[in-house]
């Protein structure tokens, strides 16, 4: 059962120009936490800003009974989060959502993360590592400062390739261009996991559909409740069956907060 209540902020450090890493001590939350799940946090105990913010679990530390959230300051809520002090308390709900599911037969996995979207992929990468499943990680971002966890992956000895829009690190261009090479390689991956901005996911889904590579993507949508009650966070899927792929009206909504945020790449419909 998800936890909901106060938890201690163990640390809240600046780890990039706009990136912060917050460790939260909550044995109740950690107990059932899985890679790909998220926490729904309050940024203030006042009535404004009112709503919780969904943030992925970036680290799940069962031994310490803590989770870490890696977040980018993009607005009022995340700015308030960045001001929280170690030793203070945060109002947190979680773990929420379904999480990634490593399929039985996966032997060689491709991981694609775009910008801050790479955050939820790290617990998955660690689990794949522990299960001795071969993996290649592709990270993309606008510029070097926005590439997250590169050092961490290098320390773990995980094969990692980087793409930046400005060419300041790794390949100059989109991470999907790096992905294309792997996806098309006959000796390439047999499964993929991805999280990042919608244009990246859209391109990746297109590529992998052509080559028949299966995988899972983690989506973002504006949320209210985070528990499946308000129907704010829907995304289009092919769950109802599609007879005519040209028919824009053939889709079924699913809830990102409970039926996601991780979806089968084959079922999501991402509009332009």
């Amino acid at each position, binding site marked *: 059962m998800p936890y909901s209540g106060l938890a201690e902020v163990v640390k809240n450090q600046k780890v990039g120009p706009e990136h912060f890493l917050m460790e939260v001590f909550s044995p109740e939350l950690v107990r059932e936490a899985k890679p790909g799940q998220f926490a729904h946090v309050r940024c203030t105990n006042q009535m404004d800003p009112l709503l919780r913010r969904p943030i992925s679990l970036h680290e799940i530390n069962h031994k310490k009974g803590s989770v870490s959230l890696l977040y980018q300051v993009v607005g009022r809520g995340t700015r308030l989060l960045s001001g929280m002090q170690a030793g203070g308390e945060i109002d947190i709900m979680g773990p929420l959502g379904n999480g990634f599911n490593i399929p039985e037969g996966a032997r060689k996995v491709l991981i694609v993360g775009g910008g801050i979207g790479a955050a939820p992929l790290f617990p998955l990468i660690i689990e794949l590592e522990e299960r001795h499943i071969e993996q290649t990680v592709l990270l993309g971002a606008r510029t070097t400062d926005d590439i997250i966890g590169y050092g961490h992956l290098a320390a773990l000895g995980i094969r990692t390739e980087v793409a930046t829009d400005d060419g300041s690190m790794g390949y100059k261009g989109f991470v999907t261009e790096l992905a294309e090479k792997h996806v098309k390689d006959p000796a390439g991956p047999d499964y993929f996991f991805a999280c990042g901005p919608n244009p990246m996911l859209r391109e990746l889904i297109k590529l992998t559909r052509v080559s028949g590579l299966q995988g899972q993507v983690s989506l973002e*949508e504006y949320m209210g409740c985070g528990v499946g*009650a*308000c129907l704010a966070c829907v995304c289009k899927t092919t769950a109802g069956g599609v007879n005519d792929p040209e028919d824009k009206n053939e889709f079924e909504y699913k809830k990102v907060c409970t039926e996601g945020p991780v979806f089968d790449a084959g079922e999501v419909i991402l509009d332009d």
Partner: protein
Amino acid sequence: MTDMGVNPAGKGFNLAVNLGGLKMKNPVTTASGTFGFGPEYAPYIDLNRLGAITVKGTTLEPRRGNPTPRIAETPAGMLNCIGLQNPGVSHFIEKDLPYLREYDVPVIVNIAGSSLEEYEKLAGRLSQAAGVSALEVNISCPNVKQGGMVFGTSCAMASDVIKAVRRSTGLPVIAKLSPNVTDIVEIAKGVADAGADAIALINTLLGMKIDIQSRKPVLGNIMGGLSGPAIRPVAVRMVWQAARAVKLPILGMGGIMTADDALEFILAGATAVAIGTANFVNPGATMDILEGIGQYMKKYHVRDINDLVGAAWK
């Protein structure tokens, strides 16, 4: 009182209320559309402790709802344009109602239609189904093109909807009113004359938000309904006006976040209160509010919650 755990004020204090024939063990229910069909919040609270559960708006046929974004945060509030997404009344009766029947809590089913005939059919179907305790008639949803608010903003139409529902059900009929009107008293009187047993108010206030970067409306449906603390003063005022104008009991809602807020509605004339947006902020909000009402009663030696209803008029 069957269970001590249900009465936060303890022995000798009465929290039970009667909302137009619907008996509630305490005055706290959920606001339609903010609590799903119940199971969503079962991990967080004991549903049995609620005075009633009000479920998501139900229509005759399944509805897919509006495109995203469906929600936007605003100062101390939020806009939504869900668009009444729901699986339809048959699905509700077959799949959701059996779950709710497992609980010892009355179920208020919120209904919405795009024609009088639809309201009538819905009311008929739900009256046959075991486990429905009352109907809350949404004549006020700002998020659907036909029907919805047009029924709630015209007095004659609001009365027609309530008459249609009244004809087809023996269940308590709660008319849920739109605040997007010039004169709430006129509508309240209209639905009272048409045979409603209680009045629920307020639904959301029509609003919108524009993104100055993209220079476009934020919501997928352009406009949406405002809820949360931002609307509370408007809601309290409308409860006050409606409660004084008609004899019917009132189910008050609109921005209730705490027990203090709930008490404000009760003092303004609400017999019961519904908790909406607060659930998103605090999944235990209903229980905290119930607890707080009990404490207030103890502190001020209020033996019966009904003694507080409309107490601010005196």
